[in-house]
């Protein structure tokens, strides 16, 4: 399964991304209140999907490393940390571009925005810290740091639901959901980003072998 994903992820990414681009710009309807700028939503959610997977994998491999002390696990955790950090930044930037016309500001101290920024800072620190810990011969410390950093990920998801903010809750709870064409588009975009994640993981692992 993993081998299959690694071998064909790029092909599937291209297929899904082409379909996704078509659907985002031509198939998905224009949103009633926000207009065309709402189309950022699909990519914004795609980035969120990737960093959620990457940070979860980072957690799994950090725990694995602590248990079995195999440096390869620590390296896979680090690679996932890299991917996750990049996509957290993309989430923040795409969110800002979306917020400017809709909310009327690039940034505000909304709980979800703040916790996402902290998530980015935490994992950016992890990336630097990992190299330092590795050099000092104590890679276990960076794994412990990664486990602690992960606490913020569920907070990002929960904050918007339990605290007042400007960031919307679209799915579940009081959210109104999205129209069925929008849902189809979102699912295809999720597919594209899922394969993009596997492709990046594969590329990065190959890079280590050089």
């Amino acid at each position, binding site marked *: 399964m993993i081998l299959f994903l690694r071998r064909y992820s790029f092909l599937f990414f291209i297929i899904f991304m082409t379909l996704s681009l078509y659907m985002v710009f031509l198939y998905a309807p224009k949103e009633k209140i926000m207009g065309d700028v709402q189309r950022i939503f699909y990519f914004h959610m795609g980035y969120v999907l990737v960093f959620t997977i990457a940070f979860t994998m980072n957690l799994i491999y950090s725990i694995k490393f602590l248990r079995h002390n195999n440096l390869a696990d620590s390296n896979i955790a680090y690679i996932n940390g890299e991917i996750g950090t990049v996509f957290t930044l993309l989430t923040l930037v795409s969110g800002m571009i979306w917020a400017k016309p809709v909310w*009327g500001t690039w940034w505000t101290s909304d709980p979800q925005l703040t916790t996402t920024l902290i998530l980015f800072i*935490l994992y950016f620190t992890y990336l630097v810290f990992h190299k*330092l810990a590795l050099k000092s011969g104590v890679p276990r*410390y960076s794994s412990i740091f990664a486990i602690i950093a992960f606490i913020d990920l569920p*907070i990002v998801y929960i904050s918007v639901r339990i605290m*007042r903010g400007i960031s919307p809750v679209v799915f579940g709870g*009081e959210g109104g959901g999205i129209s069925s064409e929008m849902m189809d588009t979102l699912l295809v975009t999720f597919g594209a980003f899922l394969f993009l994640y596997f492709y990046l993981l594969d590329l990065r692992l190959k890079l280590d072998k050089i």
Partner: protein
Amino acid sequence: MSSAKKKIKILVIVLLFFFSFLIFKAVESSLVYYLTVSEALEVRAQSKIKRLRVSGIVEKGSIKKNMDGSITFNITDLEKSIEVEYKGEIPDIFKDEIEAVVEGELVGKTFFANKLFAKCPTKYEEDLASSEKVSLAK
């Protein structure tokens, strides 16, 4: 224990404290990102805090453009309402009956805002009349 290990340990502890502090600060300050109109009036009556961030629904037909380029409108939490005066950039989706967030000072029953944000809908609907443009009331 070697000194490198000791250093790393100290660094971990310092970083932990630093991030706990950051998270605590963020939670503390954004626990109430905004107040409702009723809460704002209450806070204003009970304390000397002037600068507030208030959210409410823009009352239908209340948006007026003034001569000096500012706009006035009423926001309500369906119990009480306040008049908001604002001059500056207006978000694209700002119109009647949306939820708005304003930052500024509440003096009496008038809120002098220097920031105006619009909350985006939590339901994304298809725009059936695509040609229709969002515009400010007269």
